[in-house]
């Protein structure tokens, strides 16, 4: 800035690009093109917005070594890998905006690949549960204004979504809940005493893997068939479960939040289906809603975008030309564990840190393209690395909160990096170019004059 003082400014009502709470009340202090301070955010959110060391330039691995290249070279190389793969997997999408996700669906269609999101190792079973039962939900504001009973089952918002209670659930006050925390009961069900459990009015510790049985027992009590419930279920005495069922029926408005404790313990989608059934049945007695605690700030968005663009929310295989959805066969872990994909594009996520080891070994065998602002363990596997701007800080776009509410993320500062949307558009252009060249090469040659 040639020694001149850098201009500082403050942006208000900024959306947080960390968790599914998608808080929109952050105040960000900006100096030049740098975020200097983040207020009103939790520590997780503040650290996300402040950022850290970035990938500096696009890179391609040549002869085992990564070389810095131009964006165009990186796009061309990515397109080459995707076009020449028989069944590429385009994976991730949770920490970017819907505008990029839409381009991702188009690119997957063009290359006949599989599109899957991080939900597959997160709330994918919740979607399968919803397919079976439907979901009785509400926006978070409805819960804030009305709920006198909050249930957290297999989730720990005190540590994973720190502002959830303050903004939406346990501690906030609203129109019909003027006493805030005092007027509410908080029930926590988990396999260990989490920080969330410590603040509960009632905590039920269940045996790991017994969620299905405990939910079934509660359904029996709600249906008035408690006499069939055994003396102990999931390590919890019958009388205590009766008390919990009564507490749920007695609420004027109950809200049931569930996390990976249900979706990724024994029973998975069946656990979720059972929880959704319990909530539907409680509505014969009172008002009850249910919501998956979504992790990344826009993992709900990729489910929405994929559904309206392809008809299916995740695990969509375009290798037959039409959209094909069969989780168990077409999810990221399915194709990777079988070694049934020959190239992987990873965007806005880090499977190397999250996937099981066997799957990672297969990932390491195929060419990987990574699009991300930051270096992470997946970078180590990548053949092509394309650094991107940070959505919600350096570029704007749409994100869906855990309750399905769409909000617009702001652009706070300029960035030397292209957005995910721009990068995907670049790859799409390279795919077209490549296809055009192929078509030309394959076209019948005209006799020259």
């Amino acid at each position, binding site marked *: 800035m040639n020694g001149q003082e850098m201009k500082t400014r403050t942006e208000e009502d900024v959306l947080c690009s960390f968790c599914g709470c998608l808080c929109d009340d952050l105040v960000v202090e900006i100096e030049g093109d740098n975020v200097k301070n983040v207020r009103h955010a939790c520590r997780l959110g503040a650290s996300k917005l402040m950022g850290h060391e970035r990938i500096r330039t696009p890179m391609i691995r040549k002869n085992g070594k990564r070389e810095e290249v131009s964006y165009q070279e990186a796009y061309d190389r990515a397109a080459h890998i995707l076009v020449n793969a028989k069944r590429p997997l385009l994976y991730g999408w949770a920490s970017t905006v*819907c505008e990029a996700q839409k381009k991702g669906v188009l690119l997957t*269609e063009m290359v006949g690949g599989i599109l899957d999101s991080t939900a597959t190792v997160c709330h994918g079973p919740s979607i399968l549960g919803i397919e079976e039962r439907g979901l009785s*939900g509400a926006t*978070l*504001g409805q819960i*804030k204004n009305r709920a006198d009973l909050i249930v957290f089952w297999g989730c720990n918002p005190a540590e994973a979504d720190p502002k959830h209670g303050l903004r*939406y659930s346990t501690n906030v006050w609203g129109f019909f809940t003027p006493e805030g925390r005092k007027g509410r009961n908080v029930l926590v069900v988990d396999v260990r005493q989490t920080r969330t459990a410590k603040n509960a009015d009632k905590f039920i510790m269940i045996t790991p893997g017994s969620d299905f049985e405990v939910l079934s027992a509660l359904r029996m009590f709600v249906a008035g068939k408690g006499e069939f419930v055994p003396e102990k279920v999931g390590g919890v005495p019958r009388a205590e479960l009766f008390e919990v069922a009564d507490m749920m029926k007695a609420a004027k408005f109950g809200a049931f939040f569930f996390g990976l404790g249900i979706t990724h313990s024994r029973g998975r989608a069946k656990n979720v289906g059972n929880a959704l059934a319990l909530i539907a049945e409680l509505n014969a007695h009172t008002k009850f*809603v249910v919501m998956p605690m979504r992790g990344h700030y826009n993992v709900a968005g990729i489910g929405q975008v994929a559904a309206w663009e392809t008809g299916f*929310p995740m695990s969509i295989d375009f290798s037959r030309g039409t959209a094909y959805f069969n989780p168990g066969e077409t999810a990221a872990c399915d194709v990777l564990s079988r070694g049934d994909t020959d190239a992987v594009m990873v965007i806005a996520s880090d499977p190397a840190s999250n996937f099981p080891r066997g799957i990672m070994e297969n990932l390491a065998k195929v060419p990987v393209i990574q699009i991300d602002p930051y270096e992470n363990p997946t970078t180590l596997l990548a053949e092509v690395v394309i650094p991107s701007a940070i959505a919600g800080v350096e570029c704007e776009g749409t994100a869906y909160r855990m309750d399905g509410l769409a909000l617009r993320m702001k652009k706070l500062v300029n960035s030397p990096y292209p957005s995910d949307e721009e990068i995907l558009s670049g790859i799409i252009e390279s795919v077209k170019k490549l296809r055009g060249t192929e078509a030309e090469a394959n076209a019948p040659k005209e006799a020259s004059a």
Partner: protein
Amino acid sequence: MIIRGGIVYDPANGIFGEEMDLCIDRGRIVEDAKGEEIDAHNLLVMAGGVDAHSHIAGAKVNTGRIMMPDDARLGLEPATAVCRPSTGYTVPNCYAIGYRYARLGYTTAFEAATPILESRHTHEELEEIPIIDKGALTLFGSNWEVMECVREKDLGKLAAYVSWGLRASKGYGVKIVNPGGGEAWGFGANVKGIYDPVPNFDVTPAEIMRSLAQVNESLRLPHSVHVHFNNLGKPGNYTTAIESLDLFKDIKPSQTRQVVHVAHMQFSTYGGTSWNDFKSEAPVIVDYFNKNHFCTMDIGQILFGSATTMTADAPLEYGNAHLLHAKWSNNDIELEESSGVVPLVYLRKNPVNAIQWAIGLELALLTKDPWKVILTTDHPNGSSFVNYPEVVSLLMSKVKRQEELSNIHELASKRTTLPGIEKEMDWCDIAIMTRAAPARILGLEDKGHLGVGADADVTVYDLKPDEMDPSIQHDLVKKSLATAKYTIKGGVLVSRDGEITATPEGRTFWVDASVPKEDEERMMEDLKEKFDRYYSIKLSNYMVQDAYIPNPVVIKAGALPVEEVAP
């Protein structure tokens, strides 16, 4: 472009089956044009179809998709040179919605219900629907600010809120669904009638409906209020319908159109006291429409087969799920609405479904003036919109109706008047019901007709109206209407014999209504408080940004004289 020699039905301009050429230039119908010629000799030609009530975009449609992969698998079509892959039947993906309307010869469709808070999502989907022009009706019927203005009898402030709500949602008109019921559902209850007070708000559904209709006219909105009545879907609800209609009787329209449009009338035309003595009251309802000129309706026809019910009438959906043991999704929207989604199948041998089927047809056939009754299936509540040709063929053929009546539950013949109805609609009636009337009812001046200056939305059907009898050849009617020979949208040929040839982006209509500044300021005081205390997001993040409406058509309206905008 010139469309040569078609047999044109353009009832809005007094043209009833005349052979004529249509000229198109720069997206409009003109006196004279050059260029590409389309041979339509002896073929049926109409304006592009207009669907005034269809659920095509937004949270509840996507909820339907997410909970029903079985539905998505029904409509698989691969990508083509111009098309993205299609999926779905009752809840198709966005692309399929555009392509399938175009194949039917429809060029405009309005999403029937969007909560303000979730409108950003609605527009995200509308933007992805190719080809057709569209708009969305905004829900106001269980909104806290609306109910408080009504309670305070402050219609100026209410007008300011409606104007602001339309701008915030980029909406086209005022939709009211089960007024007050969405709020009662917040604690699992419902309102039982139009004079049953809304819990905690001390207003009645009747007051909500009347006040919103008055404000709708003071704002001079292009469309009237668009109402889904209380008690919808329940036996004996025709009395609620008549009571509700009476509320609008003395309200003066601000322009030449209805004061109230009744959504999917079929679902509010039920007699009896329970499902056991369930019967049609279509003659009573139609008599009301024949005698009064302030109201219009769409029929909300059901057809046998699968459907997905989706509505802001959340208690109704809970009831559906409970009754049918079906899967159920619900979504309550803070301070504004509630909604629900339940998939179901209408069965020929189910007495209630058979009677419902007959009622829709009775409404259409008994109403004397076709301008008052438009064709819908309340897609996808009654059936998918792709089945409109089935409805048309039923309306045009008594033979077909009798065949169908002999195949369905006998109570359809005993508890409705359908068997005795001789009327068979002609092409003029059909052109009115599917184009001219919906455009007029919505207040879309350049749609639904083929006069000079109209949008060049034209459909040519592969059917020679002067050489066939729709009464006998109902199969041909259905087949020809299902796949237009040519569909032209904004002067571009978009579909030929069912093949999509081009996918131009459609436009989105929304209404910007001005109000006196002091009313707006008073209203904003209220809103600031609501956002500070009760909403879960900030006021500044609430309004749908312009980025979500890439091709807007802004209709100016308002309580004040409309200011001239410099060109």
